[in-house]
């Protein structure tokens, strides 16, 4: 068995272009039994007001081939249902919209934020990573990941190297990831700022007005440089610098903006032709820049207080869309009894709005170069509060569960509001529940 695993490990290492000979401690470690380290999890994520709900199953398996050579395999299946804000603003009158497929309509009651309820998807994601030492103090890893949805495909490659210094008290790391994605929106890709069209018959195969190609591409390059430092017998510090460059189709094909009256700020009213179902206002598909460069700094401190572990994290991120964000996070693991622990968790996130975020577009005014009313690009704050309970079984396995509340609050762009918007404008805020069960075991 050990010999077979050694051969498999050697073959995988060869596939990564690495030599296994000369790895420190290889002869002794080859005798050790290989092990599977498995972690399985179920996650439920549910937003208030019948918005997005996600049920997700995930499994992560790590196979140890000895000599610190490891294969990690991951698989996740997500099922998403519910409604998502379309970007349109609320109105004192009911509003009708053409669905993304262009083959039906839906109506939002007066005073409510329009939600697109045709949001259903199943996502399958898989990943594989190989890691091993390749010289004294050096470790190498390489992997690939892919995911597929009804309207989205992703393929990514990543590679990284770590190097230990100072009696292994310092570990420097460098990693690169490249992802190439394909977006295939229902009803084809909208032309930037095209008006939402009237609905067509279910059996009408003609192209929808205002739609272009059936797919668009996006490429993302990520670079991560990090230092992990032992500060003492009880304290560990991690610092990361990250750089991310995205290019291609970065627009959300399902998000729209409302065209409003320049005096009242109310949605411009439109009447579809007789016998035709269509939008009750003028709604334009959004348009974002085709590139985005982001930089981030991340610091994480882990400290042991006589068995209790405090984890503090801070992230600063800035990008050329002018979204600057700060994230603060804390976890505190408190053991009790012989084999249990409780872990409270708190996270705060705040971001500034993207430079092209618009609450609405004004009728008769020239269109900006880019515009999006996606609330995720607005000035917003979020809070997460949670508690996790973990239990270790007599066989050394662990199961745990956590319950968290997530609250997102958008800040209105008051300088953009006009007319009645000053009293009626609202952001699509929501609360969500996160419930997770995990089981961690070894074979």
């Amino acid at each position, binding site marked *: 068995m050990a010999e077979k695993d050694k051969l498999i490990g050697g073959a995988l290492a060869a596939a990564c272009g690495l030599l296994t000979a000369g790895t420190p401690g290889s002869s002794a470690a080859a005798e050790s039994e290989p092990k599977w380290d498995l972690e399985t999890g179920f996650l439920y994520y549910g937003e208030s007001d019948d918005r997005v709900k996600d049920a997700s199953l995930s499994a992560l398996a790590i196979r140890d081939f000895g000599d610190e050579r490891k294969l990690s395999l991951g698989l*996740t299946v997500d099922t998403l249902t519910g409604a*998502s804000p379309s970007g349109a603003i609320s109105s004192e009158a009911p509003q009708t919209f053409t669905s993304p497929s262009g083959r039906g309509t839906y109506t939002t009651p007066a005073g409510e934020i329009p939600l697109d309820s045709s949001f259903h998807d199943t996502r399958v994601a898989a990943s594989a990573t190989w890691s091993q030492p390749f010289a004294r103090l050096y470790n190498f890893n390489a992997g690939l990941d892919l995911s597929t949805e009804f309207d989205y495909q992703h393929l990514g490659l990543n590679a990284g190297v770590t190097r230990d210094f100072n009696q292994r008290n310092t570990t420097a790391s460098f990693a690169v990831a490249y992802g190439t994605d394909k977006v295939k929106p229902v009803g084809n890709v909208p032309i930037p700022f095209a008006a939402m069209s009237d609905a067509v018959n279910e059996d009408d195969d003609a192209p929808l007005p205002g739609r272009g190609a059936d797919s668009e591409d996006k490429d993302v390059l990520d670079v991560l440089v990090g230092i992990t430092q032992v500060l003492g017998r009880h304290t560990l510090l991690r610092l990361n610098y990250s750089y991310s460059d995205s290019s291609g189709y970065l627009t959300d094909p399902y998000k729209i903006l409302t065209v409003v009256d320049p005096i009242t700020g109310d949605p411009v009213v439109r009447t579809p032709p007789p016998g035709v179902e269509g939008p009750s206002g003028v709604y334009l598909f959004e348009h974002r820049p085709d590139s985005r460069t982001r930089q981030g700094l991340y610091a994480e401190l882990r400290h042991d207080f006589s068995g209790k572990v405090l984890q503090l994290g801070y992230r600063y991120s*800035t990008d050329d869309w002018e979204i600057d964000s700060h994230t603060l996070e804390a976890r505190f693991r408190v053991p009790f009894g012989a084999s249990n622990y409780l872990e409270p968790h708190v996270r705060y996130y705040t971001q500034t709005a993207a430079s092209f975020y618009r609450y609405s577009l004004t009728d008769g005014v020239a269109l900006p170069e880019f515009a999006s009313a996606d609330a995720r690009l607005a000035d917003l704050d979020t809070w997460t509060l949670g508690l996790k309970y973990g239990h270790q079984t007599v066989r050394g396995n662990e199961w745990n569960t956590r319950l968290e509340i997530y609250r997102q609050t958008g800040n209105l762009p008051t300088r953009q509001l006009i007319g009645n918007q000053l009293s009626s404008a609202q952001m699509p805020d929501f609360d969500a529940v996160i419930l997770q069960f995990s089981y961690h075991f070894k074979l």
Partner: protein
Amino acid sequence: MKPNPSTIVCLLIAFASLGLSGCANVGVKPWEREVLAREDMQPDTNRMDTAFDDHIYFSKEGSSGGRGFGGGGCGCN
């Protein structure tokens, strides 16, 4: 605001300096790693939680990543 390439270089130099020289005298001896070797002191503790969280926050917020590469690769809306 376009990130300035010189900012990147400065940050990289700062990281390298911190790791390779500034921390040369910080740390523990190999026989002082009892606590650091514990599973709850490893950087990838809560691996499953982190993966789920990265995906949620990537889908709901304007910026992501930083801790690792996690979270992307979806058309989440």
